[in-house]
C-alpha cells in the first residue's frame, strides 16, 4: 500500500482487451452485411475476404476502431482547421455553447442551492418542482425553446447554452444542497455559540464543507452540459457542432462519422472533466484534505 501505483498500466490493459472484443464484435456484427453486399453484387468470396470486408465497410453496423481513428485523423488533421469539414471546428462550436451553458448552469445551480438552504420557504416549495423539471424530456422542449427564443430574436449560441444550463444545474443544486447541509450538528453548534451571522456561517462553515460535494456535482454537470449543447444543436437545423455531425452522420447513415463525432464528444468531455478535477485537486491541497 505504500507504493503508489499508477493507472496507465491497467488502463492500457483494459483498453487492449476492449479493442480485442471490439474487433470480434465488429466482425460478428458486420458479417451479415458483408455477405449480403457480396451476394447482391452476385459475387462469390472466401471467408478471408469476408473477414477483411467486415473491417473495411463503408457503412458498417459497428465500425472497427481503426476506421474511427482514420476518420478522426482525416477530419482533424487532414483538413484545414478553418474548414467546416474539420472536426475541431465543430468541437469548438459545441465547446463554446457548452462553456456558456456550464457557466450559466453552475451559477444557477449554486444560487438555487444557497437559496434552498437559507430560505425555508424555498426549501419546501422549490425542491419538488426542481426535481420534476428534470423529468421533462429535454429533446421534446428543445425545439420549442429554440423557436420561442428565436421568435424574440435570440439565436445562435444562447438558446443552446440555455438547454445545457437547464440540464446541468440540477446535479449541481442537488450536490450543493447536500454539501451545504453536511456539517455535523456540533460544527453548527460551534457557530451558534459565536452567534455567527448567516453569512458568516455560510462562508466559514457551509461553503468549505460543501466544496467536495460541489466538485462531484460539477464533474457530472460539465459532462451533462456537453450533452445539452449537443441536444441543442439537433433542432437548430444541424448547422454546425458535434451534434450536427452526429445528426448528419445519422441522416446519411454514415456510421463511421457518427462514431467519430461520438468519440470527439467523449474526448472533449474527458478534457473538461479533467480540468474540473485538477481544479479540485488544487483546492483540496489548499484545504488540507487528507490524501487517501
Amino acid at each position, binding site marked *: 500500500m505504500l507504493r503508489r501505483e499508477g493507472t496507465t498500466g491497467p488502463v492500457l490493459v483494459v483498453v487492449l482487451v476492449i479493442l480485442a472484443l471490439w474487433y470480434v464484435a465488429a466482425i460478428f456484427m458486420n458479417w451479415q452485411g458483408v455477405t449480403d453486399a457480396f451476394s447482391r453484387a452476385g459475387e462469390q468470396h472466401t471467408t478471408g475476404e469476408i473477414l477483411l470486408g467486415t473491417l473495411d465497410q463503408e457503412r458498417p453496423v459497428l465500425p472497427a476502431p481503426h476506421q474511427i481513428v482514420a476518420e478522426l485523423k482525416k477530419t482533424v488533421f487532414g483538413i484545414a482547421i478553418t474548414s467546416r469539414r474539420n472536426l475541431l471546428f465543430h468541437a469548438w462550436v459545441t465547446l463554446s455553447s457548452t462553456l456558456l451553458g456550464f457557466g450559466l448552469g453552475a451559477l444557477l445551480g449554486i444560487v438555487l442551492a444557497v437559496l434552498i438552504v437559507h430560505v425555508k420557504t424555498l426549501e419546501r416549495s422549490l425542491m419538488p418542482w426542481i426535481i420534476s423539471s428534470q423529468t421533462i424530456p429535454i429533446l421534446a422542449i428543445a425545439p420549442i425553446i429554440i423557436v420561442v427564443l428565436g421568435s424574440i430574436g435570440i439565436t445562435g449560441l444562447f438558446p443552446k447554452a440555455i438547454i445545457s444550463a437547464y440540464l446541468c444545474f440540477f446535479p449541481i443544486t442537488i450536490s450543493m444542497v447536500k454539501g451545504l447541509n453536511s456539517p*455535523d450538528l*456540533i*460544527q453548527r*453548534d*460551534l*457557530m*451558534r*455559540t*459565536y*452567534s*455567527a451571522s448567516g453569512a*458568516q456561517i455560510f462562508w*466559514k*462553515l457551509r461553503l*468549505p*464543507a460543501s*466544496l467536495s460535494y460541489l466538485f462531484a456535482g460539477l464533474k457530472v454537470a460539465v459532462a451533462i452540459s456537453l450533452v445539452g449543447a449537443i441536444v441543442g444543436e439537433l433542432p437548430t437545423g444541424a448547422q454546425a457542432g458535434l451534434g450536427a455531425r452526429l445528426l448528419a452522420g445519422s441522416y446519411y447513415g454514415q456510421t463511421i462519422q457518427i462514431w467519430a463525432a461520438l468519440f470527439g464528444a467523449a474526448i472533449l468531455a474527458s478534457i473538461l472533466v479533467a480540468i474540473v478535477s485538477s481544479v479540485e485537486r488544487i483546492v483540496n491541497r489548499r*484545504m*488540507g*484534505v*487528507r490524501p487517501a
Partner: protein
Amino acid sequence: MKEPASPPVVAIKGLSLTYEAADGPVYALSNVDLQIAEGEFISFIGPSGCGKTTLLRVIADLEQPTGGDIHVNGVGPEEARLRRDYGFVFQAPALYPWRTIQKNIELPLEIFGVSKAERREKASKQLELVNLKGFENKFPWQLSGGMQQRASIARALSFDPKLLLMDEPFGALDEIVRDHLNEQLLKLWDKTGKTVLFVTHSIPEAVFLSSKIVVMSPRPGRIIDIIDASVLGRDRTLDIRETPEFLKIAHRVREGLRAGHSYDD
C-alpha cells in the same frame, strides 16, 4: 475574596428536558434548580449519560428545555448567546478540517471582526498556553486526539469570554498536561474573574478547580448535592490535594456519586 453581589450569571428553576426518540421519550433532565453567581467556578460531576452535556447545552441555547425557567446574565439563553456572552468547549474537539490549527483558533475572532494582526497575536498566546507551538500550520487530522482537544480549548479562550462552558475539556489529556492546564485554568479564573461551568469525570479535578461542585444523579439528571469548596481558597496549588479539607470534600463528592449510582457490587 468578595462575595458576589451582582445578579446570578445563571439562574435555573424547575428545568426539565425530554428527548423525543422514535421508541419513546428519554428524560434527560428533570426539575433542576441552580443559581450561579458571577466569578464562580462550578464543576458538574455525575455518571455517564446523566445529562451534564444536556444541561450545558441548554444554558448555551443549543437545546430547548421542555419545561422550567432559565436565565443567563439576566436574559434568556438566546439573547445571551446572541450577545456572545460565553465560550463553549465541546466534549469532542469539533475543529474544522479545512482550517489549520492556527486558523481554527482564530475562527471566533474572525467572526467577531478582530483585525488580522490582533488575531494572530491572541491565537499565538493561546497556542503557547496549551503547548501547541510548532503545530500552527498542521491540519487537525495530523494531530493526536489530545492535541486536537487542546486546540479546541485554545479556540474557546481566544476571545476571552466572561462565561466559560467546558464539557470534559481535559478528558483526553495525560495527567501532567492535565495538571498543567488545571493550574493554568485556575490562574486564568483567578486573574480574570471569569465564571466557569465545568463538566468532568474526575473527582480530584473537580475538587481542585471548583468553588462549588454540583453532583448529579443518573438519568433523568437531577441535582443530588451541591458542595461548597470555597474553603480551599482561590489561590490553590497542586499540593493542596493532599490536605484533609481537600480529601474531605472529595470524599463527600464520591459518596454523592455512589449514592446515585446503580453499581454497588
